[in-house]
């Protein structure tokens, strides 16, 4: 298969002699690294499906009339897009792929605390996904990913129950992963791996897991209540049955605001790793970055009401939620400043993962700042439920979470597969994504402030120019996402051997071979240094050794 043999005995190799044994060795594996690969493949398939729905939406919006799709189909398209991207790509994405692969390796453990639970969580994820896809194929859902009542519970006549079941099951997959991370990080650290020697990726995974475990049950119960009202007509959310429609929004956002941090916190962790490795120095303000993750996890639970400023909540509630939302922006700002300070006096190289990290910083700043706009009620009244909000959350979720995910995939690709990808194509596609992304979503801020509501299939003519611009950008963005799939796949056969530590980075994962042996560490390492223990003159040395022709 490979042009050159990969070193030693590693987790990708099979002793399986029959096809059945091979299947078993993958689909019943309890190796966290193989489970990570199962997730990588399935999550990327979902990402492509979600992308397909997005393409359909953007094509429809090129003209102000509804010419490509009927209103019902359009509503199903954006609902499918939202549900796949949120529940089946962003929430599991970084934790289940990179987290599964890296948490044991980074803390010096041989596997997760509960390897079988880990495998089970993947099966739950797939089961949830199958439910959602079945619902989509047999008629679709038209409630939006937010399932607002009483529309979802009484009025919608699409496959609400099936979809809710999918999200519900997928929630258990998240919880299983979260519990596993928490226990693993608490109990399985190698000797000497104290809390303040943990890589920042572990801190952020830990914070993420706390949110997952505390918040996911709430949305599970909420979705169940929607199903109960829908099936048996028990009055919970529909006022016609004696229920309260706002109760749903409170419960839903009590989970879904923290859920936006489930999406971005692991990304913060990835960025810290990337910036340290490609500046060749310790992350500036390690403790502040670590604690800001915890602060976000905590404060994130107190701001759900900022999604409900115009819902009919009282002025007092609006003011309190607005105030707390202002506070939650500060820990994110602290991270950005510390990463910037890390660059100072570093020896920076523009390898592909670093390009993604830099792109992340630029885009996340815009996403976070517009979050402040939305947190100020007087502004939010005008822009909520318009394309301004759509642009905001794409800047944080695509510009933030996905850029970090892609950066992480590129950074650890040599470790996962043992091979290097094409650096040239890596750089090109990172650039295409950055340009395409801004062209797609920046016009949406403008059209949103003009008043273009979201989830509109037909719209007034004067918004067309901005929509066309956005759709053109989306084409570029799509190309940018497809290129990496091609060169990463090709690298499996043609890539150079990576060696243990192609980036010359610190961290236990870089001390084992690439790909790592099945049990990670032949001997459990003893940790004596802090994370990012680059020599004081590492940056100096790196720059001194640079010759024209070395990688940029």
């Amino acid at each position: 298969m490979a042009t050159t043999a990969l070193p030693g005995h590693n987790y990708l190799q099979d002793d399986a002699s029959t096809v059945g044994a091979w299947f078993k060795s993958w689909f019943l594996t309890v190796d966290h690294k193989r489970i990570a690969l199962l997730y990588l493949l399935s999550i990327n398939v979902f990402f492509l499906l979600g992308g397909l729905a997005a393409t359909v939406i953007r094509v429809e919006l090129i003209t102000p009339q509804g010419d490509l799709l009927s209103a019902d189909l359009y509503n199903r398209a954006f609902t499918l897009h939202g549900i796949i991207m949120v529940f089946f790509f962003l929430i599991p994405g970084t934790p289940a792929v990179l987290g599964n692969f890296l948490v044991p390796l980074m803390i010096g453990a041989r596997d997760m605390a509960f390897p079988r639970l880990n495998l089970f969580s993947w099966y739950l994820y797939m089961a949830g996904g199958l439910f959602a896809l079945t619902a989509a194929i047999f008629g679709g859902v038209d409630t939006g990913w937010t399932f607002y009542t009483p529309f979802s519970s009484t009025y919608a006549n699409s496959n609400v129950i099936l979809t809710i079941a999918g999200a519900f099951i997928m929630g258990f997959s998240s919880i299983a992963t979260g519990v596993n991370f928490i226990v693993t990080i608490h109990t399985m650290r190698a000797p000497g791996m104290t809390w303040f020697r943990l890589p920042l990726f572990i801190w952020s995974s830990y914070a993420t897991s706390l949110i997952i475990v505390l918040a996911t049950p709430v949305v599970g119960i909420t979705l169940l209540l929607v199903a109960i009202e829908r099936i048996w007509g028990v009055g919970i959310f529909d006022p016609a049955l004696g229920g309260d429609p706002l109760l749903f929004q409170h419960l839903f956002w009590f989970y879904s605001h923290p859920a936006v941090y489930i999406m971005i916190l692991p990304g913060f962790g990835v960025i810290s790793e990337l910036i340290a490795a490609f500046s060749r120095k310790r992350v500036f303000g390690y403790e502040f970055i670590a604690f800001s993750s915890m602060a976000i996890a905590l404060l994130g639970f107190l701001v759900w009401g900022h999604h409900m400023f115009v819902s009919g909540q009282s002025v007092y509630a609006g003011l309190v939620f607005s105030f707390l939302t202002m506070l939650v922006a500060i820990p994110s700002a602290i991270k950005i400043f510390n990463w910037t300070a890390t660059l100072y006096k570093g020896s920076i190289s523009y390898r592909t993962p670093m390009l993604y990290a830099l792109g992340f910083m630029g885009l996340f700043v815009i996403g976070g700042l517009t979050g402040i706009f939305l947190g100020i009620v007087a502004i939010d009244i005008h822009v909520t439920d318009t394309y301004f909000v759509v642009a905001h959350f794409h800047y944080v979720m695509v510009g933030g979470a996905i850029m970090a995910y892609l950066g992480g995939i590129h950074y650890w690709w040599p470790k996962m597969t043992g091979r290097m990808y094409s650096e040239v194509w890596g750089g090109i596609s990172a650039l295409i994504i950055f340009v395409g992304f801004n062209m797609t979503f920046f016009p949406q801020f403008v059209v949103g402030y003009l008043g273009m509501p979201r989830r509109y299939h037909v719209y007034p003519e004067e918004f067309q120019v901005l929509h066309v611009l956005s759709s053109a950008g989306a084409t570029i963005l799509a190309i940018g996402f497809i290129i990496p799939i091609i060169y990463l796949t090709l690298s499996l056969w043609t890539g150079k051997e990576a060696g243990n530590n192609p980036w010359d980075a610190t961290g236990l994962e870089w001390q084992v071979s690439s790909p790592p042996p099945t049990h990670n560490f032949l001997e459990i390492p003893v940790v004596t240094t802090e994370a990012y223990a680059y020599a004081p003159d590492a940056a100096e040395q790196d720059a001194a050794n640079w010759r024209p022709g070395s990688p940029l």
Partner: protein
Amino acid sequence: MRDFPLFPEQASTFAGPVDALYWTLVGLSLIFGGVLPFIILYLMVRYHRSQKADRTNQVHSSLPLELTWTVIPLVLVLAVFFWGAFLYIEIRNPPDRSLEIYVIGKQWMWHVQHPNGKRENNELHVPIGQPVRLVMTSQDVIHSFYIPAFRVKQDVLPGRYTTMWFEATEPGEYHLFCAEYCGTEHSLMVGRVVAMRMADYERWLTTPGEIILPDGSTGGAVASPLVGAIGDPMVLAGSQLFATGLGCASCHRNDGLGIGPNLEGIYGTEVRLDNGELVFADENYLRESILNPAAKVATGYANVMPTYDGQVSEDQMNQLLAYLKSLGAADAE
């Protein structure tokens, strides 16, 4: 393509202040979002591995620095928070003597009734220079009443009233959107807001039009002389419901001798309940008292009022409210 605006029209008293705050935020964002990338770019180039630069004496943390970049953003966001908070309080508190117009949302249209009884669908005519307060409810799912040129938006909920106010400043026609996703034809639940000078508005108001009820049926046209003669048809319709249609008056007498309390002047006052609590008698309280009287029982009275749930349409409820409020208004003068 007629035109290609980049910024929305300003047509209400809120538009200016909201935009001022918005541009201030854009300005502050440029300091962070515009300058920070250049700092990053500078560091990227200055400390690129191919560059000779001083890389000795690295620092890995600095409390003063951390405090600086925590406190400065904190002060700034708090400043904009307070600015926004005062504006928000203003946006949510209608002045007394606002013109009240009733709005009913349903899949997928807006129905509007003016105090004199004039009805319109998917259009809202308002006078300029006069605060207008919309009392809104939905017959089915959640909708949201959004007028971008006025910078106002408010969700419209089934089973309760939400209110919103504005004062239009420029005559003209503006977009009216439903901003909360409400099913198949959400994007067609749009219309126009027509802001006109007071005299024009009054002329429009007394021009008979076809009456389209929220259930889609058409009533006859209101003869304009009648409007002048009887004063206020919404109040009139409400008073008829109260007196005979629904039989409220048999218990609620204005001499205070009925089984139920005298409802004159009740709107906008505080009512004491039998559990000692004080509640503010706004639209939502009156609505609940009619549809679900047992939920909150006025002190000194027996819980004997029958529920009218299912017997009063949203339209009739609005008329009852208009009538009950007019009792208060008469009192105050």
